[in-house]
């Protein structure tokens, strides 16, 4: 019997995930996907959205955690809630608009109403329930994501009542969010450009692994590198000083700072010079003083935050898994509060790169889909993730690092995945 023909229950993840290879069935089996929903997506902290998407009191916007339809609201007091889009009466969808401003939601089926903190507010023809105030506003309220955490404006949700705090989950990845947010002269980013949604007939892990794979750009993106003046390829080439770092808890990054520091030019990370964006650079120096130079040289992070937030310098991706072989990538351009001079450039560069017609992401997504087709083949059963094991080392903070195009990030991803998937396993 091969591992492909495993029994339908008790999937032995410890046998399917080895230090240098992982089994193909992890990408194709619907029962693995169902177990991932339970043990990862409905347990750990998942990125949902940004506070700027519900900037004003009573703003709301439809978001998701995997297949779950989540309404992110801000109540009149300013608190952010993550509500499940389901009426406590008959389970009908309560909110059909994508976004808006309202202090309450009214289910269109039988007219039950809910406050935007999820509490039941009213039900028509109340005599049938013994009168008004007979139904408990909490237990008969909208379902909710029990834990909501906000880190520097990034909103995360966890379906687990207890567990590691958001700060514990983010760990070293919090510093990467800091790096991004500190590129705003006001210390805040905004998600105001809306999300472009790109469908991939592929397993979500293929996307997550690819985000800090520095091995693929020269091949997958050679078409755009050939015709555009892009420095991306060089950042990941053999001999580049950039490193791939496993940040713990499944997070990973391509740390390109060594290359940008070698270049030593403010805004070099963005492929421009400071005289092209003088107002922005001046505002950064005003805000951060001497520390501004380092921020302007180091630039934005390239970090994959487990399981679904990918910050690719100026772009933010949220990965939404829908089935073993179906994933939606939501992507938007980071907008810097107080960085108006930068924002249109950030948007235009993002739109050119990402999404269904993007000059980069269309080809990444092509690879995800071909990869999904490939892993369904029966032999060889495994995917190899050993690249760079021969030269891996620890950095000064004890994190494992490899060269720019090593699979160090993937191995970190799988170690955390295995931990979550085997937690509570019988025997």
């Amino acid at each position, binding site marked *: 019997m091969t591992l492909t023909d495993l029994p339908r229950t008790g999937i032995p993840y410890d046998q399917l995930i080895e230090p240098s290879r992982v089994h193909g069935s992890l990408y194709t089996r619907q029962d693995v996907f169902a177990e991932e929903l339970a043990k990862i997506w409905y347990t750990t902290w998942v990125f949902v959205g940004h506070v700027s998407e519900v900037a004003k009191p009573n703003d709301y916007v439809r978001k998701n955690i995997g297949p779950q339809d989540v309404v992110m609201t801000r109540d009149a007091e300013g608190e952010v809630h993550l509500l499940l889009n389901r009426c406590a009466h008959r389970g009908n969808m309560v909110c059909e608009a*994508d976004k808006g401003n309202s202090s309450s939601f009214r289910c269109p089926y039988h007219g039950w109403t809910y406050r935007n903190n999820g509490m039941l507010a009213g039900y028509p023809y109340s005599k049938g329930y013994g009168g008004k105030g007979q139904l408990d506003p909490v237990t008969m309220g909208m379902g909710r994501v029990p834990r909501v955490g906000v880190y520097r404006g990034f909103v995360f949700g966890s379906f687990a009542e207890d567990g590691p705090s958001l700060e514990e989950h983010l760990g070293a990845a919090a510093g990467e969010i800091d790096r991004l947010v500190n590129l705003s002269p006001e210390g805040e980013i905004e998600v*105001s*450009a*809306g*999300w*472009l*949604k*790109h*469908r*991939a*007939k592929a397993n979500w892990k293929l996307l997550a692994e690819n985000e800090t794979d520095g091995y693929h750009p020269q091949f*997958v993106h*050679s*078409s*755009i590198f*050939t*015709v*555009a003046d892009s420095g991306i390829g060089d950042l990941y080439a053999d001999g580049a000083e950039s490193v791939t770092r496993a940040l713990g808890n499944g997070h990973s990054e391509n740390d390109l700072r060594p290359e940008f520091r070698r270049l030593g030019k403010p805004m070099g990370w963005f492929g421009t010079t400071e005289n092209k964006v003088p107002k922005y650079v001046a505002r950064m120096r005003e805000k951060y003083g001497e520390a501004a130079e380092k921020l302007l040289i180091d630039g934005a992070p390239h970090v994959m935050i487990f399981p679904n937030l990918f910050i690719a310098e100026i772009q933010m991706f949220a990965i939404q898994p829908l089935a073993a072989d179906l994933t*939606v990538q939501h*992507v*938007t*351009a980071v907008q810097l509060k107080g960085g108006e001079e930068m924002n*249109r450039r950030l*948007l*235009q560069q*993002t*739109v*050119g790169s990402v*999404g*269904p*017609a*993007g*000059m980069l992401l*269309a*080809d990444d*997504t*092509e*690879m995800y*889909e071909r990869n999904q*087709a490939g892993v369904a083949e029966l032999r060889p059963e495994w995917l190899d993730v050993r690249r760079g094991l021969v030269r891996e080392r620890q950095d000064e903070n004890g994190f494992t690092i490899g060269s720019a195009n090593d699979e160090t990030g993937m191995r970190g991803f799988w170690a955390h995945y295995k931990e979550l998937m085997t937690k509570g396993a019988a025997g």
Partner: protein
Amino acid sequence: MTATVQAGREATGGLDIRTIEQFLYREARLADEFELEAWEQLWTDDAIYWVPAGGDDPNTQMSVIFDNRSRIGLRVRQLNTGKRHSQLPRSRMRRVVSNVEVIGTEENGDTVVEANFVLVESRVRGRQVWAGRYTYRLRTVDGQLRMSYKKVALVDRDHDLPTMSFLI
């Protein structure tokens, strides 16, 4: 009778509706058949090629495509490298352009035309139907009809879309 014809000509910026339609059909065929250089030559120097996502302002909102003339050229050159994996092999496509309607003229004299389209794309891994409304701005340059603007409002623009790295 003469007055009606005059009014019609006025509304189309002096262009004959048949001439406009022939231009739209040619543009559609060149895109379907990956006649990339001929397609690129249809654009004016100040061209905008826009495929909105959900938003209505491409300067502040995400789009599927928002190309100026230089980026249209880059898109064509990328397709021409033979290494644009998402178009290897190329999609086989046929689109029908219909309901052609002359909307009016821009201040600069460009003629605004709208039309519906349905496009069937056959790819290695499946078939996809695309549909929506085109908005063109047309201008005669050196005796040749050109487009300065093409907006593609997909009926599916609010939803997740599969890869579409061909010319739509």
